């Protein structure tokens, strides 16, 4: 049986964590959610995740810093940035920093879910 893909979510809005977790679990993912950046950093040290979904605007360390940590310690983890403050500038920064994609809030659940399915299906090899 195929192992479940592991997704870790970082967002300071509890509602985002909650709803995303429910939707992704329904589609067969294993999901952990956190509202503080440090928790995610600690967790990624302990365990491997296939995808990180993070908001940009977090209390220190912010989303970009978390992402660069991940790129260093767990390069195979794909990162998706979501944010309510979407500008061309932040999008560019995120993508340059190694994010797979950049999604503005509010977003359609199905869109993010389909994206995660897409980027994890290639990891079968």
């Amino acid at each position, binding site marked *: 049986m195929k192992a479940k893909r592991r997704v870790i979510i970082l967002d300071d809005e*509890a509602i985002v964590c909650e709803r995303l977790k429910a*939707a992704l679990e*329904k*589609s*067969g993912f294993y999901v952990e959610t956190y509202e503080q950046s440090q928790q995610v950093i600690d967790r990624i040290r302990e365990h491997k995740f296939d995808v990180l979904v993070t908001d940009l605007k977090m209390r220190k360390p912010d989303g970009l810093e978390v992402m660069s940590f991940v790129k260093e310690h767990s390069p195979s983890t794909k990162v998706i940035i979501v944010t309510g403050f979407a500008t061309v500038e932040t999008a560019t920064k995120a993508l340059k920093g190694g994010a797979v994609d950049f999604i503005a809030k509010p*977003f359609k659940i*199905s869109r993010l879910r389909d994206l995660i399915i897409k980027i994890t299906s290639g990891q079968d090899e």
Partner: protein
Amino acid sequence: MTFVGRIVGRYRGADALRLLQEKHQRFREVIDENNRVLELIADAEEKLSGEYIFGRQYLKSLADKLAQSTRSVVYGLNAIADNRYPELVNGLEAIGAEVQVILGERRSAPGAKLILPLQETNGDLADVVGQKMARLGELRNKAGCRTPEGFVVSAAACQRFLDQLAEAADLQRWLDLPPDCEESALEQAAAGLKEYLARARSRARLPEEVARAIHAAVATLGKEHEGVTLAVRSSALDEDGELSFAGQHRSLLGVTPDRAARAYLEVLASLYSVEAMRYRRNNNMPPAGGLMAVGCLCMVEARAAGVLYTLDPGQPQNDVMLVTASHGLGKIVVEGTGGTDRFVLGRRQPHEVVSRSLGRKEWMYAPRPGGGVHKVRVPPDRVGAPSIGDAKLAELAATALRIEKHMKRAQDIEWALDEQGELYVLQARPLRIAPRDTLGERDLSGIADRYPVLLSGRGEVACRGIAHGHVCLVDQRPQLDKLPDDAILVARYSRPVLAAAMTSARAVITDVGTATGHLATIARELCVPALMDTEIATQVLRDGDEITVDAEENIIYQGHVDELIHYNLLNDRSYRDTPEFRLLQRMLRKIAPLHLKDPASSHFSANNCSTYHDVIRFAHEKAVEALTENYALKAPGLGRSAFRLELPVPLDLLLIDLGDGLVEGVADQSVVVRQVVSAPLRALLDGLTAEGIWSRGPADMDLDGFMSSATRSGDLTGPLAARPQLNLALVSANYLNLNLKLGYHFNTVDCYMAEQRNANFIHFRFAGGVTEMTRRERRAEVLQRILEQHGFLVERKGDLVIGSVKKISQDAMVERMQMIGRLIGYTRQLDISLRDDGRVEQLINSFMRGEYSPLSRRTEMQARAEILVLDDESIVCERLSDYLENEGYLVETLGDSQQAIDRLRQKRFDVVITDLKMKGPTGLDIVHFIRQQDQHTQMIIITGYATMEAARDAQYCEVVDFIHKPFHLDQLGAAVKKAAKKAARLRKHVDQ
């Protein structure tokens, strides 16, 4: 330089022109901001589908953007209309303030009731009475459950109390604690507030009006129920509040009436428990900013009580319910300290007891004399006896299922059985999944492998959810009122008539439609899972099919998918229950509903604007008015932006170019259609000038009716006319405001169309008519039904018709505007032919089929008229017969009057044309003969000379017409037409 300055200055010449052009520019800005608001609203409504994840940030940003754009619209209006509507600014700011209150950014809840009796509560009032009481009210008032009597002290009362608190010294710094405060500050505030409230409680210090209201409500209860004691329970405004307030007094039992106010204060104190404050802070809200409602219910004299789960959350597929019960009050069961009975019941009738386990019930809770409750020993003979019998268990199960069905979720129900054997529901909430449930149940990714998939990924989800039922192909059913109770409506188009059927449907699926359209909005209000725009649902799904609709993943399965259905029933945290969703709902109620619909009604005023949508609608209308009234005044030099439109139909139309409605560089005062750039006007003109719409000839004169077809606006010596009621069109590239006065019909069309569909709309208004009321109402009915068939939402009052369509694609808009053009032309002379109700159907069908000349002889005369032509000159007969056959009649000719009489004995003709001077029997003889034979045959006499006697004789026989030789064939043609119609009518009378 200000506008006011310019207005005060001389109104003449170049200044005046520039002023006007600036107003045009302002008007276009108003339209743009108006559209921005409409788009924001449509965008927000789409978020209610559940398809989107959004947080408070979005809500705050939405509120700000809306306020900003609406303000721009209002300021723009006042600039165009010379500050005529200052009260609109106040209205706008008041709405903004209410929205801020909803967002929790501001404290006061405006003017609501302090006390609501339970019979006045329901599920929609969670913001006023809290979740718990709203649900209880819903069950009692909408689902017919028996609950205790009682009332709710509303959130508004709580607000009054908190306002009073805020005025007390020293509390400010705690009450104003910001969301990013430190933990220590939080704990200090919690302790301080708690202490203050304890002191307040001992003195029962409540605001005057709140105390009075509580005492009055308690007294009323006391009158109806002697010796009543109360259960005072917190009813938090959001579910999370409920969960996180752990370990405080939130239910006080056995409260005597005199202590009700004190109990209220004690319950309120839990607002400031550390957990509650922490929860608010973590959600970015002021920690001391919460509100709470409190329910006061009559205590049930419980013989037995307990809890029921409508599903076993660990094993939903077992199809059973779980009941725990004990003697006395349910508190012992909830605490788990006294031994309980456990029953497992079947979910299906007859709800038999699958298993039972009787506990040793040594303790129970009972009311304490003097108030409160206390734990007492259970009499020894009852310790081992079942607390509730099987018959009552079955009754309880049936009630619970009814609740589950109403709430569409598995339920966790607190119940009580009184000494008389009556069952009461005390509380019901969504069943929480036990914390140690396996992940497996939430993973539904493999379902598509196990169940046949009928449709997947087609169209859009307009309302998220999961449903099971049987397909009802709506288009095949003549009546939508006898649907099975598990109907899933499947329709080709999203017609408004589906809305009524949706209240009892499990889900709705359409081939054509959008997630922002009218039907989608209703689906979301009713919480009915909806899939729109699938294109092929009506082909793939057959009537009667059993299906499971997953309007979350957008997949339709054949059959009953257990896993999905249980997943849904056990979903204790639907998106609808989240605070963000409910906040958005509440915000939208202040923003989106449109109350001002008819610009000509007295209700249409700045003071009646209660939502942002009202404000922009009002502003838009008044901006148009302000702009067009310039053209009612005779002022030289304004001609540059006003043009007369040349049309192939006799209609005078004055065009005001708002800036880009016409091609560049128009030199003359007159333009032709191809110089018009305005897309909505072009589309409308396409329809208006289409083949057959604007009939050339005189309309069929029903002599009982009356028609005045004054399509010309009177003498126009230039682009300006003295009368305000002109045929006037304001145009820009994407916008049209058209005012038409055709005869006595007043038509207004207001339209914006562009690529982005969310701001597209058509407002259509029609009033007037010159005949009596019945005909005008028939005309209104024709208009209403034609508009509805084209997807318009129509309101009709008497002979007034108001229709609108919104948020459809640009192509669809063009089609609708063309239809409107055709409709305007078509209705010009409708009143005349609406002589009976039967004509209504005919006229609607004719229009829909594209037959725009309902007044032509083809529809009037089903059979072709039969004519007999008598003349002793064969050449005349020949020529007449040729001509008449060409006109569509059946013609016989004879040259001999005796032959004619013989023939007339055999056959009846509609019209007989005869020369007066014939050999043998004269024309007059023939006339007499015919009259004796038949009352209906019409006669036309052709004569070279007409003597007075002949005329008198003939008149006596009601001859239709004399035609003198020599004559033009057209003359004859006209006379024959008239005669044939009369004959047909007379004959129809007889036949009926």
